[in-house]
């Protein structure tokens, strides 16, 4: 299957081999309410290719065992597969070393880890943390908690009505008290692609460190953490066609080494006596307890899948899809796009007349189309646009122009019912 994708792409097929790609995702081959499923909720979670499902099955069926401690064959095999995923992850985001790749439960845990380990040990009263108005709650609340604990101050980069960061305001917020900038790479509610390289350079100029929330980015655009020079980059496996309960914290080795452990337990230690513990080296220092072994192995399979397809190919296909969706949506009466940034990807967030997004969601579901309706865990964004919720269609590389057409037909139906 994957060979077919590679062959099709290398054979110079001018069009993206989306039919071959779709065949790799068993879940897409089903009907919902008697209609072919059109899965347009990829910003919430992505579907899993057969290779990921098989990797999980294979682990549990043939070599389920704990890692880093057994001397028996199964444990050695599991450890090798788990560490192979770390290596794949390192290559995927071009980290300098596998010591910089910490496996966690997801983006949320990675941000909490940095806030509590790095932030809590470093911040002093009056220090400042900068986030933006377009952050997901998971990149707001951990910093609010940290501010409560350390008496640091949270500062917010505002957005304009296109859903873009106002960079001038960001520049004004930066000063010698700024210690941490935590910023989303691609907004889950708006689709805005933020100028992260510029944000990082500006923060470094005042000696602040930068965490980039890449949850929504890694499945859509190539990421090179060394080129970005970000201090931390975090993402979830499940938004990258991998299993839920897996995530990655990338951190510069020098920073990770100075940071105290986040959680204590097995695997993160070298020697424990009842008086004192010598912590393990990176990356294990931050991986207390038995991790989601099967999940991490599955994440490795997901990265293989994405790498074989090629993020440049994926990005080109998705750019074409979103451009098409934007053009088609402009023809729908009363449709208001939320998020009209110049740099935008994969996400079509909108309201439709006075129809509540949840009614849109239900009507589309009956047409076999899965979208998300709600505040998308970004309530400050909703507040900015003075709306309680949006309907959001979010695309992945297995989506098609025909599915965009069906979405638009579904919206016409909403207008018919509530017209």
């Amino acid at each position: 299957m994957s060979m077919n994708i590679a062959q099709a792409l290398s054979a110079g097929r001018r069009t993206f081999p989306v039919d071959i790609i779709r065949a790799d995702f068993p879940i897409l081959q089903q009907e919902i309410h008697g209609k072919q499923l059109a899965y347009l909720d990829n910003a919430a979670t992505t579907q899993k290719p057969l290779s990921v499902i098989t990797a999980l099955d294979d682990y549990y069926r043939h070599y389920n065992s704990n890692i880093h401690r057994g001397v028996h064959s199964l444990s050695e095999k599991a450890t090798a597969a788990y560490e192979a995923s770390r290596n794949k992850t390192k290559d995927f985001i071009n980290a300098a070393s596998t010591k910089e790749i910490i496996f966690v439960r997801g983006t949320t845990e990675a941000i909490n880890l940095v806030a509590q380990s790095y932030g809590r040990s470093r911040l002093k009263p009056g220090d400042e943390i900068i986030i933006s108005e377009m952050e997901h709650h998971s990149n707001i609340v951990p910093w609010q908690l940290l501010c409560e604990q350390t008496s640091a101050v949270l500062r917010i980069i505002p957005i304009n009505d296109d859903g873009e960061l106002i960079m001038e305001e960001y520049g004004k917020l930066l000063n010698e008290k700024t210690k941490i900038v935590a910023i989303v790479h691609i907004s889950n509610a708006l689709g805005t692609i933020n100028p992260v390289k510029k944000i990082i350079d500006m923060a470094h100029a005042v000696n602040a460190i930068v965490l980039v929330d890449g949850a929504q980015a890694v499945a859509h655009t190539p990421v090179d953490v060394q080129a970005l020079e970000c201090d931390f980059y975090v993402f979830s496996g499940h938004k990258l066609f991998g299993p839920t309960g897996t995530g990655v914290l990338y951190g510069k080795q020098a920073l990770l080494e100075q940071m105290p452990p986040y959680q204590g337990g097995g695997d993160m230690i070298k020697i424990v006596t009842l008086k004192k513990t010598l912590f393990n080296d990176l990356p294990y220092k931050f991986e207390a307890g038995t991790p989601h072994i099967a999940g991490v192995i599955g994440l490795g399979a997901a990265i293989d899948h994405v790498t074989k397809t090629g993020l440049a190919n994926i990005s080109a296909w998705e750019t074409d899809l979103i451009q098409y969706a934007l053009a088609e949506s402009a023809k729908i009466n009363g449709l208001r796009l939320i998020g009209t940034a110049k740099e935008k990807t994969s996400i079509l967030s909108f309201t439709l007349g006075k129809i509540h997004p949840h009614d849109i969601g239900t009507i589309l579901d009956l047409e076999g189309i899965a979208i998300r309706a709600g505040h998308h865990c970004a309530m400050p964004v909703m507040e900015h646009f003075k709306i309680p919720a949006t309907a959001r269609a979010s695309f992945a590389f297995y989506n098609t122009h025909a599915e965009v057409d069906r979405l638009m037909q579904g919206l016409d139906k909403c207008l018919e019912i509530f017209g």
Partner: protein
Amino acid sequence: MFDLKDLYQEVIVDHNRSPRNFGKMENPDRVAEGFNPLCGDRLNLYLKLDNDRITDLSFDGSGCAISVASASLMTDALKGKTRDDAEKVFNEFHHLVTENKPHDVEEVERLGKLAALLGVKEYPARVKCATLCWHTLHSALEGETTPVSTE
């Protein structure tokens, strides 16, 4: 197979478009706030009571078609009813939208126009939209001060 018409019946579309008893009440005896974090539905319910009788009720807020229509239909159905009557109607209604059994014709008839909402039964995620106003009513009658949440 579900038919869209089962959920978005004419009565619901109509009550969503022009909700009855919509607006803030002057000098209410009871006020309660309801919130559905899933949808972002918010509603305020205002009551005038004469001993145990609900002499007037109105609501305002914003929400999906199901929650607005449900509040509109509820306020229409309960005007002039006693607290006990209201509880009885709620129990029957709640029972019918949450219990997994075929509808009893008599029960459905007793509900009158409220029966238009029974379509939500096929949409578990939307049952809360239909019951939010009822939970808010309950809290208003009990005189509770903290906002009702469906979560």
